[in-house]
């Protein structure tokens, strides 16, 4: 069995599971955030049960609309806090304590190898970086998980994404993922799992790997996953909040498909042209496209290594006079480290605005929303029409290096010029 099949089999109490079989599994971790948390709670109350199945297995993070932008969002967050107190949920991250849920789940050691994690957010797939089965569900299903601790799942066949070789800086894992999506398309992995393997992945930092599992959903996949290894163990040292077992794929696992990629084959940074994350082109093809906004952040690319490479490009320079440049660390922990390294000072000196650790303008939730016809280069994961504001705004997805270079010039620019 593949890694995902093994995790699902264990949690279903079965010896073997096969792709496209329906299984019922026990859930190890359930995440709600402010965007859909109050809805989940309302649906849970409708079920008429008093207590959630296991408060220790629930994580609540406020990240989309905080600090609250209006009375509606404040009311929903109050409802969530009331529920957290009433149910005795310890894992609660108020604004200023956590950051973006997907980042918090990983860096606070909630997600561990072999776990099954569900969240009311499609980018819950990010947590697959720890070798867990992590996926998104809607609020009615989450209400039922809160009641029963159980979930049905269609066992996804595994598409193995094997990547060999070394990425040539400033080409980053984001560029690699855009290349992968270009080949898979936005529906190439429907009801399948993406498992990333190969020498490129094993030499990659956990931060870079998270870009790959984060954007697995953009291919239509059920989840993205990476087998836990030495780097996973090192990362979890001092973070894991309970013991865990390393679950690994069988040597004779059967993959639905294996797709080979060569890191050296990615000659230049990539940009996904609107309105699909799969519309990748080399940066030179869209170089010079005028931008109104550059956004560096989100659960995709708001981590320390992302801020480091952006700061390296922005250091001692000024961003374009007419371009809004928004930098948002993915968590308080990232913000703290970035402050200590002087990265935040670099952004401020360069003329960027630094936001509190939240989802930011990624999904037109709160701040940085695009107006008619505006163009944004963004390190986030989706460039659907109307994703971050007006339906006529255009979003180009790119790495933090490409976004930073573009911020300087006010147009899409090749970061290699600064290396």
């Amino acid at each position, binding site marked *: 069995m593949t890694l995902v099949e093994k995790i699902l089999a264990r949690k279903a109490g079965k010896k073997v599971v096969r792709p496209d079989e329906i299984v019922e599994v026990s859930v190890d971790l359930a995440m709600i955030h402010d965007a859909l948390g109050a809805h989940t709670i309302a649906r849970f109350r409708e079920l008429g049960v008093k207590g959630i199945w296991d408060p220790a297995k629930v994580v609540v993070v406020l990240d989309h609309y905080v600090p609250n932008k209006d009375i509606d969002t404040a009311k929903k967050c109050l409802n969530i806090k009331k529920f957290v107190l009433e149910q005795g949920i310890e894992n609660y991250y108020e604004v200023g304590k956590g950051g973006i849920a997907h980042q918090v789940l990983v860096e606070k050691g909630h997600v561990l190898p072999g776990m099954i994690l569900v969240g009311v957010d499609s980018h819950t797939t990010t947590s697959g970086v720890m070798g867990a089965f992590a996926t998104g569900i*809607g609020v009615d299903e989450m209400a039922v998980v809160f009641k029963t601790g159980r979930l049905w799942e269609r066992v996804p066949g595994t598409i193995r994404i094997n990547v060999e070789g070394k990425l040539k800086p400033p080409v980053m894992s984001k560029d690699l993922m855009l290349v992968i999506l270009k080949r898979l398309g936005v529906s190439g992995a429907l009801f399948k799992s993406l498992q990333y393997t190969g020498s490129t992945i094993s030499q990659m930092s956990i931060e870079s790997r998270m870009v790959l599992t984060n954007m697995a959903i953009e291919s239509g996949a059920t989840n993205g996953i990476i087998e836990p290894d030495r780097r996973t163990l090192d990362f979890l040292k001092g973070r894991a909040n309970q013991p865990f077992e390393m679950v690994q794929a069988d040597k004779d696992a059967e993959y639905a498909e294996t797709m080979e990629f060569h890191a050296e084959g990615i000659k230049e940074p990539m940009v996904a042209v609107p309105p699909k994350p799969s519309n990748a082109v080399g940066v030179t093809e869209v170089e010079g496209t005028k931008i109104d906004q550059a956004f560096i952040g989100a659960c995709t690319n708001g981590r320390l290594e992302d801020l480091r490479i952006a700061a390296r490009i922005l250091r001692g320079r000024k961003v374009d006079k007419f371009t809004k440049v928004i930098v948002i660390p993915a968590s308080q922990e990232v913000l703290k480290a970035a402050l200590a390294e002087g990265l935040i000072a670099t952004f401020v000196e360069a003329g960027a605005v630094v936001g509190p650790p939240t989802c930011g303008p990624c999904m037109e939730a709160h701040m940085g929303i695009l107006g008619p016809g505006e163009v944004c280069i963004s390190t986030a994961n989706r460039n659907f029409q109307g994703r971050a504001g007006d339906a006529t705004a255009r979003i180009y997805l790119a790495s933090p290096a490409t976004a930073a270079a573009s911020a300087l010039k006010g147009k899409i620019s090749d970061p290699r010029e600064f290396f």
Partner: protein
Amino acid sequence: MELKGRVWKFGKDVDTDELFAGRFIMGGDETNQSQYQEFIARSGLSDVGHRENVPSDFLSKVAPGDIIVAEENFGIGSSRQQAAETLKFKGVRAVVADSIHRIFFRNFWNLGCPAIDMSGISAQFETGHEIVINLRQGTVKNLTTGNESEFHLVIPPWFVDMVEAGGLIPYHKSLKS
């Protein structure tokens, strides 16, 4: 269980941000069902004038019992259940598509509305055709052209019971009693 209705033909890659934009997610009082339903129904597909994959008169003419037939990859994107709710509250009874994204698929069924993925089905329908879906038999028939096709869904055995109960929450409440 049989569902009969008028077809709205959608294009491919209809995403959740299109069905229900992020700016509306925190709107509506989720503790007040009638107010919530009215808000969700009104807010969905609010900028349809800019879209190529939705019929331009869908918003003004959609009526209870209508059925969407779409090309591939319906409902890609977010887990926001409002993307499914807005279709239900506008009156859409079922979605039949060449392929459907996992989260939308689950969300729509959970509201008591079938989401049926059948490779190539969209080629058999145009807006205004009459469609009949037989859930237990697993057939879709175009009453306008007479074409009939079979489908094979990968769903839990209790899913049709759930639809008959009105969705996941009512189904779970009925299990208790």
